[in-house]
């Protein structure tokens, strides 16, 4: 079996790559893609914790399963908002959104 620290280091690196993308990119869709990376890093941690430290139980397994479903719904709503922003501001950069009432 792979030692559990390997999973921790991998998921921490993936998490902070996502954070780095979130704070440097200014495109709305690129920021959303970075959020997906962060969510995947957290899912890796849940599954690895459950499998390697508490085998025989299922809390992390189902947490990961529900997290996948929730993130799919979240990205659908966020994409709808981004398309609406593009329709109002004719741009998909966060700098273009300076006031809430378009």
């Amino acid at each position, binding site marked *: *079996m*792979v*030692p*559990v*620290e*390997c999973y*921790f280091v*991998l998921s*921490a*690196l*993936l998490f*902070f*790559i*996502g*954070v*780095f*993308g979130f*704070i*440097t*990119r*200014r*495109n*709305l*869709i*690129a920021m*959303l*893609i*970075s959020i*997906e*990376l962060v969510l*995947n890093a957290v899912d*890796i941690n849940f*599954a*690895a914790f459950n*499998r*390697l*430290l*508490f085998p*025989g139980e*299922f809390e992390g*397994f*189902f947490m990961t*399963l529900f997290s*996948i*479903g*929730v993130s*799919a*719904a979240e*990205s*659908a*709503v966020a*994409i*709808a*908002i981004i*398309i*609406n922003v*593009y*329709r109002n501001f004719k741009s*998909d*950069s966060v700098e273009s959104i300076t006031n809430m009432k378009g």
Partner: protein
Amino acid sequence: MANLVVFCILAVVILGSALMCVMTKRIMRAATFMLFVLFGVAGLYFLLDYTYLGAAQIAVYAGGVTMIYVFAIQLVSKRTLQGLIERVSCSRMLWGALLTLVSVVTVIAVFLKNKFIFAGGLLPDAEVPMKQIGHALVGSEKYQYVLPFEFISVFLLACIIGGLVVSRKKED
């Protein structure tokens, strides 16, 4: 040993694709590299003997979410698609890299400082039976998950309606 080799290959694929995903200027390439990251994470689930999770990851993320992203990119960012360079200021990039490095060193140090009780050797390399997962998913007793299961279906319905309302064209 074979597990470790497969893990190293998956780790290289995931981290390399994730780095390319946040560094590349073109959004379409970022979406493609995100697809590789998602496949790598599904491979990690297969490695952990969570076959059902890997299948769900591929079906939901690679099949559904990536398609949503590709459609949104085609609808929204025509100028970015034609290779227009997104303006990223150098100082922000530097500050972001510095902040990220400090945070990642802190988090990994905290992780490695703790000694976890490693129980993985106690369990054989066998996948979790599907019957057990199904009973836990729709059972209503202790350690069973029918309430979040039903709640997430209502949540998905609310998200469909919310997405339609938000992205609908105004009539007036």
